[in-house]
């Protein structure tokens, strides 16, 4: 009898835990509430199946438990029942998979006109790069990384000169504007993970990966690394600030361009032409 009670307790307790527990996802801050909806659908379908199976087990143990004189039924197969159960399961799978694939299609389709931001991972630091006035990120290669060029930006590429470079600082994003986040690593695998955005993607040396999102509320959010990247993995933290458009422009105007950083790094170098030293926000 204890077994029956425990099985019932597991079914009921798991559902109660789900409903009553204080542990739930962080309030969303991006357009990916579809992901949350799909997840909730999955919770209820799988939860119903779990409760049904466990309660069925409990019933069987209670009803068909051995007592002297009982003899089990003899029924090797029942094709109709087996076929029906298989069909029902297939239907449940379709109900979960279809919205999943639909949302995945959105997830990998970047809307035209999305702004671009590059995130560069290295052990154990986040750096960021934004396109300058030309709206284009210049070429960058791991081979070009040097002490005064931490992101490996190609100095020969004209579109790279006005890129805004943030080494180890905060990334700001304007609220309500779609942004394609380009991901690059110069050493090992990392993963740019902001729980409130729901989206995440690995960063791979030698490749550029991406995801996109539209921030939907302002705030300051933690960035974590979600792919084991060596002994400092858990201290690889960063910050993303989602600003109003006005605040964003103020912040942007304070950030140095690649050319300015190069000039700081080479004190005896040529003075930087005034219009190139200007950040785009100041114009």
């Amino acid at each position, binding site marked *: 009898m204890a*077994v029956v009670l*425990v099985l019932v307790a*597991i079914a009921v307790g*798991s559902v109660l*835990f789900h409903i009553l*527990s204080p*542990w*739930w*996802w*962080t309030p969303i801050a991006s357009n*990916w509430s579809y992901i949350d909806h799909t*997840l909730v659908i*999955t919770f209820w379908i799988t939860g119903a*199946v*779990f409760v049904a*199976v466990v309660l069925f087990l409990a019933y069987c*143990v209670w009803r*068909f*438990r051995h007592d002297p004189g009982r*003899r*089990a*039924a*003899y*029924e*090797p197969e*029942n094709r109709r029942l*087996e076929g029906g159960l*298989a069909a029902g399961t297939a239907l449940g*799978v379709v109900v979960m*998979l279809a919205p*999943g*694939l639909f949302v*995945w299609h959105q*997830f*990998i389709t970047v809307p035209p006109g999305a702004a671009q931001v590059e995130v560069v991972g290295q*052990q154990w630091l986040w750096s960021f790069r934004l396109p300058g006035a030309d709206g284009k990120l210049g070429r960058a290669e*791991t*081979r070009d*990384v040097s002490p005064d060029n931490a992101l490996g930006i190609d100095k020969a590429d004209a579109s790279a000169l006005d890129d805004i470079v943030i080494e180890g600082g905060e990334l700001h994003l304007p609220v309500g504007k779609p942004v394609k986040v380009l991901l690059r690593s*110069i*050493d*090992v*695998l990392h993963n740019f*993970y902001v*729980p409130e955005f*729901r989206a*995440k993607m690995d960063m*791979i040396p*030698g*490749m550029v990966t991406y995801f996109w999102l539209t921030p939907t509320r302002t705030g*300051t*959010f933690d960035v*974590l690394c*979600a792919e*084991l990247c*060596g*002994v400092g*993995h*858990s201290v690889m*933290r960063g910050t993303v600030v989602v600003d109003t458009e006005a605040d964003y422009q103020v912040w942007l105007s304070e950030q140095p361009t690649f050319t300015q950083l190069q000039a700081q790094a080479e004190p005896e170098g040529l003075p930087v032409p005034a219009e190139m030293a200007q950040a785009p926000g100041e114009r």
Partner: protein
Amino acid sequence: MVDASHDGNDLITPAAVEDVELYHPHSWWTRYVFSQDAKVIAIQYACTAIAIGLVALVLSWLMRIQLAFPGVLPFIDADRYYQFITMHGMIMVIYLLTALFLGGFGNYLIPLMVGARDMVFPYANMLSYWLYLLAVVVLVASFFTPGGPTGAGWTLYPPQAILANTPGGQQWGIILMLVSLIIFVIGFTMGGLNYVVTVLQGRTRGMTLMRLPLTVWGIFTATVMALLAFPALFVACVMMLFDRLAGTSFFMPAIVEMGEQLKHGGGSPIMFQHLFWFFGHPEVYIVALPAFGIVSDLISTHARKNIFGYRMMVWAIVIIGALSFVVWAHHMYVSGMNPYFGFFFATTTLIIAVPTAIKVYNWALTLWRGNIHLTLPMLFSLAFIVTFVNGGLTGLFLGNVVVDVPLSDTMFVVAHFHMVMGVAPILVIFGAIYHWYPKVTGRMLNEAMGQLHFWITFLGAYLIFFPMHYVGLVGVPRRYYEIGETSFVPASVHDLNVFITVVALIVGAAQMMFLFNLVWSLRHGREAGGNPWRATTLEWQTPQTPPVHGNWGKELPIVYRWAYDYSVPGAAEDFIPQNQPGTLGVTREAVA
């Protein structure tokens, strides 16, 4: 065609090959150490696997202590923490579960269940064990080398696995890990070929494929899969070893490590992931299918009822085995691979849920109108169904590509795979040990200790891993030495971590009682007799218990029926052994 139900002998063909004499041991050494008897090899495999599994258990304690009480054990620094999680994972998946199911249960049960005298290649079988032991020794050796074992995570993803900022990356750790895996695969191949050929060629007269117990079907299919999947791991290990030792760049692109350009370039880290998971996903089922097979037989025997839908169960095992080779990239949805792969792999992954669900239904329907004896094997089987269903259902979250995005690399994943391929198969292992220990030793395991062991293990494991999903749902990533101050993690998550750790320490301690029971019952257990569970399958019909070398005495058994003639109407007893002729029950080639 004569109606076989009139005479069970009609379908028994004469022996095609004469019985061959086995190599018989002449000394203590060849009887107990360098033995070619599959049953001795099975015990050797099982003892080695359990011993190394204990190491992994202690490592899990240490990492749980770090997560709940950071800093309380000062020797657990970040290096050690990552070494502990890596070795815990690799040991549990490869050196415990794979070795115990295939090397342990496979060796013991296949020859007995198919009615053979031994494996078909006994010498290669012996070598298989000694290579496995060597692989374990090499693995353990890495604990004692400068820099310690590798801390690359059990997935060993390059580039970090062979770089200086990962423990053991530029020292001995990763080298010994890769060498150990390579030896393991070689050893496994010798054993695996044996299991496959024995099932195909070593069956006794009358033992058609569709009369095999599901245990044999599960182990057989898993072995075929392992023979196809392990080569991918093998080549990945060899290539990474070249990258590490010879300076090649199979998996190494241009890299700047701590400000310095490395002499690598052009390689692909993602290629390693494809190779690893081409092995790694089938590996999940290499562990799961033997568990599926064994639990089917446990449920049928202890519910005194034929397994429901035997043919469907066989085909489900085979289909799951085949499908599991086309789902591997569901471990890589956020790896940066071409995102269009997501559509394909999400679809195949969710399709595999259908044959898996059928198995669950058929276990449950076997209990329906059964005569359920709540023995320890039955209790562990029920616990397996609960944890497997729970873990399988959370797999539908992670398999459904877009739902995986927020959950991947969080503690949700850790909770999921522990529930489905950690706890569930190990519950089957326990059930199987309580079930077959009387055949192996001639004595029953102590029931009181077994009951205590069962309740602590089942309820404890559920209390550990069910709430852990919610830690992941909050957003806590896996493989974090310390979560520290993080804005989205409420303080209550820490309390939950403390709870999980305390339960984990208790569950771990309960396993010591189980080991004590194994030893204690050798001498003090109740005498079991040859067939204490009144089971139908051949291993319970041996002339001696424990079975001697050669298993069957003078004559091999002849099989007249399937493995599940329990509670046949009209039969005097509620079971009819497979080697008993007669007209009752399922005696034809296949279920009519």
